[in-house]
């Protein structure tokens, strides 16, 4: 079974040289720590920056330079700043190669719910609806089951949707799965996790085709 950093490490293996990537808040943010050596990846922050760098050194933080999580950050050489309309032109126009974000639920047809729980204070969708509606490649980073032990990979989402038919791949602490026409296709198992355990934690249709390899982390 993977911890949060393990999930991030596995997702980092999906990066390709030259990719423009938007990382959501939470586990997705950790992906930036595991860029394969020698690979040139540019991070987009939807509040208006390409080439997002690390947090600033204590004392060098700048109130005018934040990321989409409102944290103080830095910009790397070759980076650029732009306004929010331009930022979402990059997103809607499919110029961003990969979006990694968290989810509360994903359906076997690739629907995603990650912004609203009825009866609870709703903070808003931020840029999530624009991102999921537009990205060519969306990877969801999440826990396989919720805190109550219920599967987050479902036949259909029970929570209000963020987008439909958009998720391509899911990486959890247990497995890598692809969304296909026929349901969740099991691609890899986390180290030490059996197909049966994954099956038990997956409420949506799970396709197990032949021998399932273990992830190489």
């Amino acid at each position, binding site marked *: 079974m993977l911890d949060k950093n393990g999930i991030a490490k596995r997702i980092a293996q999906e990066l390709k040289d030259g990719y423009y990537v938007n990382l959501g808040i939470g586990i997705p943010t950790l992906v930036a720590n595991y860029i394969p050596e020698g690979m040139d990846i540019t991070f987009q922050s939807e*509040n208006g920056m390409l080439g997002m760098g690390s947090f600033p050194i204590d004392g060098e933080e700048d109130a*005018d330079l934040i990321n989409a*999580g409102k944290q103080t950050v830095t910009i790397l050489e070759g980076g650029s700043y732009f*306004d*929010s309309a331009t930022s979402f032109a990059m997103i809607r126009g499919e110029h961003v190669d990969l979006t990694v974000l968290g989810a509360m639920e994903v359906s076997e047809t690739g629907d995603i719910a990650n912004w609203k729980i009825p009866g609870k204070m*709703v903070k*808003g969708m931020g840029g999530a609806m624009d991102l999921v509606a537009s990205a060519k490649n969306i990877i969801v980073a999440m826990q396989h089951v919720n805190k109550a032990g219920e599967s987050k990979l479902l036949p259909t989402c029970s929570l209000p949707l963020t987008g439909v038919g958009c998720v391509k791949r899911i990486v959890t602490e247990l497995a890598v799965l692809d969304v296909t026409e026929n349901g969740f296709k099991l691609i890899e198992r986390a180290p030490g996790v059996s197909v049966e355990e994954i099956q038990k934690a997956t409420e949506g249709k799970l396709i197990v085709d032949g021998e399932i390899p273990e992830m190489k982390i």
Partner: protein
Amino acid sequence: MNKVVKNAEEAIQGLEDNMTIILGGFGLCGIPENSIAALVKKGVKGLTCISNNAGVDGFGLGLLLEKHQIKKMISSYVGENAEFERQLLSGELEVELIPQGTLAERCRAGAAGIPAFFTPAGYATEVAEGKEVREFHGKMYVMEHWLKADFAIIKAWKGDTHGNLIFRKTTRNFNIPMAGAGKITIAEVEELVPAGELDPDQIHTPGIFVKRIFQGEKFEKRIEQRTVRAKL
């Protein structure tokens, strides 16, 4: 052509109860803090505020919320404010949540004279309820309308007496697309210079979109999430 007004109080002249205002900024980054302070002082009430976020307790739009001056917020994310939550749950405050890219584009469209456009964001979600949807090239899109307001209030780094603006770092955010989306657009700047001093090649927002400009008295520039790493 001199668009300079003396201060924030003069800039918001004519901004009355129950008006709709558009305010720039992302979180607390690049918000028109002097104008907000003047709105608090003036005590205008029943405002509809269009802004990506709603400030925090004690700063930004949080100051207007505390004084119950806002009737409705139109935003993409409003999570950081206890008073906001209290007013929302008690029914004192109305809230409309809009996807962030749609919010930016609706403001841009308002300024650009485009009454509506199609976006894929929110298709088949509750955001699309009651809206026209249409298929283009095999994909579904939702029709969204422009946003316009009585006043648009934005914040830039440098400006000149003609209203030309230059922004610094990630403060461009909603300030650029919102310029011109109000009948009157107010720009508050950190440094106001005579026309001719800014390089025309470096202007981010041309002065035509700005009706009133002033140099803010002070900028606190509060940081919402101070995240740093240790010095090596």
